Structure formats: C-alpha cells, structure tokens
C-alpha cells in the first residue's frame, strides 16, 4: 500500500514538474536586465524596476548599488546592461569602453542637488562656495568667521567613492584637498543623522534627504529647491545618468527602462524619491 502511495505521489509530482517546465518554455525565457552603479540613483532604479516588472511579469530586473565608479566598470566589462551613475563617465572609463568596442550612451533621467546642511539651531543661513571650500580645506574653523556664533565647525564629508562626494568635490573643492580633521561618514542617512545631532556641524546630502531636522544653506545666495536644481542654477546640482552600451534596441527591456523617466509614472517615481524630474507633467 505504502509503495503504491509513494508511486502515485512521484507520478503526480512528475506531471506537475513537466507541466511547469512546459508552461515556462511556452512563455519563453525571462527577459533579464542587470542594473549596477550609483547608490544615489539606486532608489530610482529600484522603483523603476519594480514598476516595470509589475507591468511585465516576464521581466527580471536586478538592481545593484555599488557606486558610480563600479557601475561604469561593470558596464565596460559587460557585467551589467545598464550603469546608473551620478556623474558623467570619466575620460578613462570612456576610453576603456571604446577599447572594448562600444560607445557608452548617456541617458540623463533626473537632476539631483547636493545640499549643504547645518544644524537647525545654526544662525548662519548661507555661504558662498569659496567659504564652503575654505571650511573643508581647513582655512575656516570657527562659525564666527562666516557670521555665525563663536563655535568650532565640525565638517563632515562622505567616503571618497560615493557619487555625492564626487559631485561635492568637483563642484566645491575644485581640486583642493580636504583638511585632515574633516570626519567621514558612509551614507546620506548617516550624514543626515550626524548633522542633526551635532550643533556645530556642516555636511552635505542629496536633495531627497532634506527635512526639518537639518537646515539647508543657500550657496552663493541660491537656495536649493526643485526649481533651482532642475534649471541647474543651484551651484551644487548635477544630472543623474543611465549609461548603456550603445543606444538600446527600440522596444528592448533596456530601452523601456532607459525611457521610463519620460512617462508620467516615471516622473512621479523620481519626485517621490526626492529628486527633480526633467519632465513637466
């Protein structure tokens, strides 16, 4: 009896397995897309992937967040289909791609502002980019030198491989090195918490991480807002990119992904994640 039952069970399982395989084969192989790169663009890519996979269940999109530099590298090495980057490709990366026989194509999908933030109790409400550079280079060490209270400045930066650091470094520091006493944190939320809990702190976060617990400074008299960032008037603003190997074939999953920012849903996702869309719905 027992053996009969077992045989029947095996039979049923077998039929089910064959059936599943047949159904899967009939559907064709899942369309896989690998996205890798910036930790800043990551949340947008995650939400894009989720929305697209809901629309087309056969689509399988994996999003990794390893940093803009790593994204470019794995795109060049063919390890991913789309590189998310919070900066444009460097000359070296472009050359490496051309040497591998393809031309990287940039798709600007949104704008991001790197906001200089201080503790909400700080009376200083604005700095020039020269003053910010002076603070991070160690020439200005007390808030009274820039019109604030007599208190030491606690400057905090991001790890040197983050895209936010690269933007800040490129647009504010202009090649000058940061002073040794500048502390380092590893992520936007950590920077936010660090500034929110330290009275004399100055730091910088993406526009999406601004809230009432930190105070955003005007830079050269321009306050960071969706408008000033989208138009590029705010001095520390930057476009966010998707890079592909050549222009993706029309209608391919990569093409759908790279043009999703143009749809109304994509626009809403970008806005919800705290970035500034390039479209105007």
């Amino acid at each position, binding site marked *: 009896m027992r053996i009969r039952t077992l045989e029947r069970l095996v039979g049923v399982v077998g039929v089910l397995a064959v059936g599943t395989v047949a159904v899967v084969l009939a559907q064709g192989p899942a369309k896989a897309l690998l996205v890798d790169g910036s930790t800043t663009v990551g949340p947008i890519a995650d939400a894009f992937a989720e929305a697209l996979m809901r629309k087309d269940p056969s689509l399988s999109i994996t999003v990794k967040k*390893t*940093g803009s*530099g*790593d994204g470019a*590298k794995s795109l060049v090495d063919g390890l991913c289909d789309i590189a998310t980057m919070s900066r444009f490709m460097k000359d070296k990366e472009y050359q490496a791609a051309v040497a591998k026989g393809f031309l990287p194509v940039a798709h600007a999908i949104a704008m991001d502002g790197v906001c200089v933030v201080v503790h909400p109790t700080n009376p200083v409400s604005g700095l020039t980019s020269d003053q910010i550079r002076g603070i991070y280079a160690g020439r200005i060490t007390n808030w009274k030198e820039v019109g604030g209270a007599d*208190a*030491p*400045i*606690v400057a905090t930066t991001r*790890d*040197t*491989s*983050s895209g936010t650091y690269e933007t800040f470094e490129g647009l504010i520091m202009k*090649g000058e*090195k940061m002073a*040794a*006493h*500048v*502390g*380092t*944190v*590893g992520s936007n939320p*950590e920077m936010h*918490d*660090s500034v929110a*809990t*330290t*009275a*004399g*702190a100055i730091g910088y976060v993406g526009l999406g991480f601004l809230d009432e617990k930190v105070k955003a400074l005007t830079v050269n008299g321009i306050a960071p807002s969706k408008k000033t960032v989208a138009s590029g008037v705010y001095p520390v603003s930057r476009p966010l990119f998707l890079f592909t190997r050549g222009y993706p074939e029309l209608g391919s999953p990569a093409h759908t992904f790279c043009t999703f920012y143009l749809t109304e849903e994509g626009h809403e996702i970008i806005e919800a994640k705290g970035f500034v869309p390039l479209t105007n719905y």
Partner: protein
Amino acid sequence: MANRVNTEPAAASLDRPLLLTPGEDLAGYVGGLAGRLVLFLVAASSILAVLLIFAFIIREAIPFFFQGEAEGSALRHVLDRVVELFGSTKWYPEADEASEFGALAIVVGSLYVTVTALVVAVPLGLLTAVCLSDMVPFGIRQIIKPVVELLAAIPSVAYGFFAVLVLSPLIQEYLGVPTGKNILNAGLLLAIMAVPTIVSVSEDALTAVGRDLREASYACGATRAETILRVVMPAAHNGIIAAIILGMMRAIGETMVVWMAAGMAAQIPSPWWDLAQSVRPLTGTIAQEMGETVVGSTHYHALFVLGLVLLVFTFALNLVTEALLGRMRRQGGRIA
C-alpha cells in the same frame, strides 16, 4: 558467549588468533595511517587557513610598494613608499595623480582608541574578576559571570548604533565638545566590548591559583586585601596579562563600532591628550574604503598594506599571549 564476556575480563577473548595474516596486518597499518592522515589534515586546516590568509594579504599588499612612476632606482621608490606610509599623515587615496598614502594618522588612531579602551577596561575587568574569584559567594559568581560574558554576544553593530544615537549626543551635551563621535566615544564602547574577555580569562587565572596558597597566606596572618594583592594576583600574573592582551586584541580588531563612533577623521589629535577629537582607525578605514575602491589600484593595495599592519600587530600580540599562558600552565596553574 555472552556469559563468558560477563564473567571474564576483556583480555580473555582467547579464541582470536594471535598472529594476523599479512593481508590483515597491511590493512590495519594502511587504515591506521589513513586515519592519522585525515586527522592531521583536519587539524592542519586551521593552520593552513592562517597561512593562506597571510599569503593572500601579503600578495595583495606588495604591489603598493612598486606601483607608480619610480624616481631613481626601484629600491629608492620602495623606501619612499614606506617612508610616506609610516611618516606622513596625509591620506588622500582617491585624488588621481595627487594621491597621497600617509597612514601614520590611521595607525596612531587605532592606538588611541585601543589605549583609551584599555585604560577603562583593565581596572574594570580586573576588579570584577577579583570580586568574582575572591569576594562574592560562589552562587552569586555563577550568576554574574555568565551575564558579563553575555556582553560579548551583543552584535557590534548594536553597540555602534548605541554610540551614534545615545552616547554621542550625551558626550556633546555633558562635555560641551563640538562632536560626540570621537576617541572617547569609541574607546568607551570598545572597553565595554573588551571587559567580558578580560573578566573571563583573568577570573579563570585567579581561581586557578588554588585554595592552598590563599590559606597559607591567611595562616601567616595576612588580611584578605594583602592575600589578594601580594599572593593571588602575583601568582596569577601571566594569566592576567594574557587576559589584558586578549582584551586589547578585541579592541584593536573591532571594526563596526569604531567606524560608527570614532568620527573617521585622518588626523593625529592635537593636543595629544584631547580625547574629544575624531580619529580614523585602521579597521574602519579598510571597511569604509575597500567596498568601492577599484580592484588593482594603488588605493586597493594600500588598504591591504593597512590590513597587513593590523594582522602583524594582532599576530604578535597573540604570540605573546600564547607564551604567557603556556608559562602559566607549566607553573602548575590550570586554566579552563
């Protein structure tokens, strides 16, 4: 059959032939040899792992000394790199052509947090151990010791969150210092993490001294304090030093807490006693920068050099501990 086994000792199974056939003999020999080999390999695997880790880290660290344009001879270039690494405090690993790899401030940062941790943890740990071994009743010791050891089971990231969200604002508020992420914060948490090791090992050493020495001391008219300070602690000194070194290794190798609590600024505090300044220890630097550095770059190899410095340091400490514990065992002390 069963009866015979019951009534006579094991040696009496006389029905077994005394001489083995050559085949049986060989099988037994080979089997024994194979068994030994397998056991040896299992035992050697951890040694192999240590050797492989050393080999891997050295292999990844060496290119650091040879990368970049050499000014003058190759030897000169290697020397320049060594001098820069241990003589300069300028750590700018990602500045392309202008990169600098001065790790002096980073090595010093590790020492700062470790020494601060020890200054707190050693008195605390030793007093706890003495209290547990010589003062409180055995029943209370049986409760307190496991609880202290439980401190070691808390994940270090939990300590890190505590450092950032609780201790850091407290330090800012009560000491009036600009930042709460500093040597003091990291040192205090490392001390809490090192205490279980110090208590556990030194309490074992103190208990191992034995009742006879203590009673001989009392018989000579010594008070309890004299007995503990002049007799028990000197007798257990090897174990106590080993406990301190083990606690030190715990502190110097800890990563998550110092990454979150030390502030990560690559500077040597000035003035030197100002524990309210941020430092950037070796472990935190490696953890923060290794994740996103380009494989094969000078920065990547420089991080392995930092790892090698750390490894050599803990390895040396470990050897000293082993030597001390070994001496303690030879002197007749027992350690659990």
